């Protein structure tokens, strides 16, 4: 049986290539049909924020890549409720269908996966 991998993405989309590089691990793994989860944590939740204008910072939009996740078979998507609350984001207006988890839920999530990569 395949080892499952949870990717924890903690970088805002404007803070450098970190957000894109975490996402690339998920997309590459999805292409190999591996059991993967992706958790948006801390500033990583900004990747899900609505009405982003990356062009104003001369950045490429991450949205197209994020929207590709289900197409690559990565459908286990999670977000931390605490991280959303701390940043004033509402879970009703996010750009992807993600499961919102409280701290107890996060703890259980980490238990479920064999391996974890945090970026």
């Amino acid at each position, binding site marked *: 049986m*395949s*080892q499952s*991998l949870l990717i924890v993405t*903690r*970088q805002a989309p404007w803070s450098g*290539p*970190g957000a894109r*590089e975490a996402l*690339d*691990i998920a997309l*590459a*793994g999805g*292409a*190999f049909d*591996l059991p993967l989860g992706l958790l948006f944590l801390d500033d990583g939740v900004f990747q899900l924020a609505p009405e982003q204008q990356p062009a104003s910072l001369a950045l490429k939009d991450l949205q197209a890549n994020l929207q590709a996740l289900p197409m690559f078979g990565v459908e286990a998507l999670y977000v931390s409720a605490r991280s959303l609350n701390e940043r004033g984001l509402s879970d009703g207006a996010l750009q992807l269908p993600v499961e919102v988890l409280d701290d107890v839920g996060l703890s259980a999530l980490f238990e479920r996966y064999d*391996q*974890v*990569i*945090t*970026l």
Partner: protein
Amino acid sequence: MKFAIALFSPPHAPSSRRALRFAEAVLAGGHEIVRLFLYQDAVQHASAALVLPQDETDGARQWQTFISDNQLDAVVCIAAALRRGVLNDEEAARYDKPATVQSQAWTLSGLGQLHEANQLADRLICFGGP
């Protein structure tokens, strides 16, 4: 036990030094390293063009020696490397760049190599996340 080791921090970071000490301990303990994988700023470890003052530790060189001495499978993510100017001959020619800086100790390849290593290993150990 079989270990996959992923490194995300640049050569000057304390986590990169810890990763090397960990890798040495893995082998000293009779365990196996199925693959080393460099991603994000860690791709700088694969540069043969780093120059440090003589009285400072050259972490990238130490990794290169460790890999050669132990004949390890050591892979650099090609997309992360290109973004940071670590090219081999083939990539330098492909993108018409004047310099090749990749150390022979490492191999440029894709993220699939990280996933494959994870599947081959009992444990994935990461160093140098944010």
